[in-house]
């Protein structure tokens, strides 16, 4: 059920795009109104989610520590796995965000003959995740050629580099193949590993099917179902310059591609995909372990009414003196 529903949801979206554009001719709705609405939802939702997270109290440092803490000078501390200053935290976060270091440390547990429990590295998920994310980033950036005029040199160079092997005309992009391979692995892993399948929810499958749909329609549009690519850029430029126009002669499959992307954009802030922003706000990663070096006062401690000894003595000085008790102040 967790697999079936998202699968048919994405199929329904594809069908909706086909029917909406090919049969009902709602090009303005699918080409202009929905994309604008999705972008508004994305920006509003993204800001909302980040602000909500930022409002969470962080009274104490709770980094996961996987190495020696900074203590005496002659004990070497692990600056990456137990950072005690901002420099260490930045290095740790950079490795996490750019290279998914915590996923790299993923291990598998197996029972071997003996019986013995054996732990080993499990790098397939890390490799596929890295391949997927960097392909997606490259594809996102090279699509800027449809949204900018003149096209920035960097975007042009990225397109050239991606099509470096010059297979076919237009050249097959390396990232097209890599992203589909990686997505395939990430999907099959959920379907065929019993433990992963057990914990996989509809919210895990939906983004996978959606992005497979986006990549699939994208590859189709580039290599098999040719359309008026100048018209596509005309539509995109109309959107970003707030002078929306619907060009003639653009294939319905393009509108399906666009509808799937629109769905992804609108769905993004409300889903697990928000790890894009959330990774920066992980308190177990982005805090320096200076719990013993710096005094952390719980910021929501209320003012406590205290009665010091000096005040006590002021109150009872005469009586204390009469009883022969010693006093600090005469």
């Amino acid at each position: 059920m967790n697999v079936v529903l998202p699968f048919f949801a994405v199929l329904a979206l594809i069908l909706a795009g086909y029917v909406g554009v090919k049969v009902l001719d709602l090009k303005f709705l699918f080409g202009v109104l929905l994309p604008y609405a999705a972008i508004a939802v994305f920006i509003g939702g993204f800001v909302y989610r980040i602000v909500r997270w930022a409002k969470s109290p962080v009274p104490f440092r709770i980094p996961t520590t996987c190495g020696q803490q900074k203590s005496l000078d002659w004990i070497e501390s692990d600056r990456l796995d137990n950072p005690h200053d901002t420099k260490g935290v930045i290095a740790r976060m950079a490795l996490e965000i750019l290279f998914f270091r915590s996923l790299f440390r993923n291990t598998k547990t197996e029972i071997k003959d003996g019986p013995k429990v054996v732990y080993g590295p499990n790098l397939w998920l890390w490799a596929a995740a890295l391949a997927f994310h960097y392909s997606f980033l490259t594809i996102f950036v090279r699509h800027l050629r449809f949204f900018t005029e003149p096209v920035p040199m960097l975007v042009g160079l990225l397109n050239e580099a991606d099509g470096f092997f010059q297979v076919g005309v237009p050249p097959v992009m390396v990232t097209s193949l890599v992203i589909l391979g990686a997505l395939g692995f990430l999907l099959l892993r959920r379907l065929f590993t019993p433990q992963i399948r057990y914990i996989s929810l509809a919210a895990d499958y939906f983004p996978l099917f959606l992005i497979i749909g986006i990549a699939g329609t994208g590859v189709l549009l580039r290599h098999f179902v040719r359309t008026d690519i100048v018209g596509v850029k005309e539509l995109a430029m109309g959107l970003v310059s707030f002078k929306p126009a619907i060009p003639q002669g653009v294939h319905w499959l393009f509108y399906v591609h666009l509808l799937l992307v629109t769905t992804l954009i609108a769905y993004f802030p409300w889903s697990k995909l928000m790890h894009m922003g959330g990774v920066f706000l992980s308190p177990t990663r982005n805090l320096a372990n200076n719990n013993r070096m710096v005094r952390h006062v719980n910021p929501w401690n209320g003012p406590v009414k205290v009665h010091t000894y000096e005040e006590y003595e002021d109150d009872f000085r005469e009586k204390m003196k009469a009883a022969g008790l010693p006093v600090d102040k005469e």
Partner: protein
Amino acid sequence: MYDAGKIMTGLVVFLVILTLPFWYSGAMGKGGARPEVKLPEGEKKCVESKEYMRDSHMDLLNQWRDAVVREGKHTYVSEGGARHEMSLTNSCMKCHADRAQFCDRCHVYLSLNPFCWDCHLDRKQTGQGAK
């Protein structure tokens, strides 16, 4: 809010980069209007239909190249039965003589850099006529 300064700075930077398409072209002073290609004056009909040529001319040129270079065939018969020499320089550029006015208009607009010109020469540039 904790670390509000850092988080808000990050959020603003993210949104500015993300909305790049909305301000970039305006800042560069270009409207992004559909490029106009200069169509040949004498000839009204291309090798195939206008739509096919617009969407899939690269397929055709690729087929031509393979046919000429690998199989030694030089004549193309179009859907309508017309015969053409399979040659970019001698057939296509007989009518579309000016690369800058025709090919490059859309290719530059879309940041495409087809490898035709790695081997083929642009007559206008070299100042030589077709053989």
